[in-house]
């Protein structure tokens, strides 16, 4: 890699102190990586934003969100919003309604059948069960 940099920046290699050169070599890979990323995602602005969820929002013209919100959308901050998988709550409700329809048998009308008119409540959401199995570390 250092050879490549010599070819690109011969002027910097000569006449500078070794430490400065090493620092520049450390920076150049980062800039090259930045150029790679921008080539892949041309709509990327000044602030980071690259997950599928964010790309959708960018295309819809929503303003770029900050880095912490990027972390949150990636589930990195630990609080997973239900909007993570869906564009908005309408999208989410429709998807949940479809899921409900698939699960129930199609033998005539059912009062519990969610058709899309029904607004799901938290009770309708699948309950996440805690792990009842003992950790394999204790096995």
């Amino acid at each position, binding site marked *: 890699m250092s050879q490549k940099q010599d070819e690109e920046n011969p002027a910097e290699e000569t006449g500078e102190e070794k430490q400065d050169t090493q620092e520049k070599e450390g920076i150049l890979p980062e800039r090259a990586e930045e150029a790679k990323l921008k080539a*892949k995602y041309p709509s990327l602005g000044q602030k980071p934003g690259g997950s599928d969820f964010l790309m959708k929002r960018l295309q819809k013209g929503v303003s770029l969100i900050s*880095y912490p919100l990027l972390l949150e959308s990636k589930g990195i901050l630990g609080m997973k919003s239900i909007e993570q998988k869906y564009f908005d709550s309408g999208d989410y409700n429709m998807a949940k309604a479809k899921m409900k329809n698939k699960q129930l048998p199609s033998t005539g009308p059912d009062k519990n059948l969610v058709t899309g008119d029904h607004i799901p409540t938290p009770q309708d959401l699948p309950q996440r069960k805690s792990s009842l199995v003992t950790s394999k570390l*204790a096995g």
Partner: protein
Amino acid sequence: MAGAGGGNDIQWCFSQVKGAVDDDVAEADIISTVEFNHSGELLATGDKGGRVVIFQQEQENKIQSHSRGEYNVYSTFQSHEPEFDYLKSLEIEEKINKIRWLPQKNAAQFLLSTNDKTIKLWKISERDKRPEGYNLKEEDIVDIKPANMEELTEVITAAEFHPNSCNTFVYSSSKGTIRLCDMRASALCDRHSKLFEEPEDPSNRSFFSEIISSISDVKFSHSGRYMMTRDYLSVKIWDLNMENRPVETYQVHEYLRSKLCSLYENDCIFDKFECCWNGSDSVVMTGSYNNFFRMFDRNTKRDITLEASRENNKPRTVLKPRKVCASGKRKKDEISVDSLDFNKKILHTAWHPKENIIAVATTNNLYIFQDKVN
């Protein structure tokens, strides 16, 4: 640069490995924290499934000490369960973020375990080893939430109490700064007493600068005089009396700088690596990818890269130092950057407070290594 060992020429040997062998890892089994208690006799792990497992070191056989006592299961329990916050439409994970042991006062052991929302205090009685839990009341000490969440530009990434001065704590941010606060100054410590930040050359700034400067862990030295921070590529040691720059910087895996684009795309750039001190504060340790972990000796300035792998499975087998080839010709026994497995990451490590025994967590296994006993 690798010496025979990290720190006083220690030769690290495999001791034990806990966990399943199979590669098919359930999310609940992912280890999220590892912590020795103050004597080192107990070792606790937390996982994404909200479970805690505590291991206890066997008392040494005084006559035949080929090695120090093994760690065996002492207790295990379900600490946290998943919650759904209906008001905010948020799912709160049961993942254990941290475990902290309380100094032992009597026969019972106390530990704190926390997820994103709740800190729990557990009392484990010696008699029946059944843990009793208590929820602690939530007290906000630092709140940097802006009025409009869209304006949020900085988050708290880690926090730690000073080991000796109980009213002092530090918290780190996603922008690479560390703030030292004194709770005696005010109940809400939104004003810091000290701000630690290394100046950055603006001409060196890139798209990735903020992300890789985000501090993933902060740990005080046992002496209380220094603190260590971990960001994506390095470990820095700060003297609490000097705020404008760290006193020591160690590169963990500088070769990743030329891979930042891919690491951003696969989210690895957001991995939160932790770091730890040895008992005498002379050596620091942190994890990396490919199940490698690194140690830096602050006195000799030597460093070593080791691997947690079931291939080195025989007890008392000395671990062979590893080397990553960043560029150019790869020597025999070296591994090239492109061959590294980025799914195998060591985020959590712990060092016994008194002895050279370390606990290293891969995704779902816990490795225990110790120095060679002659």
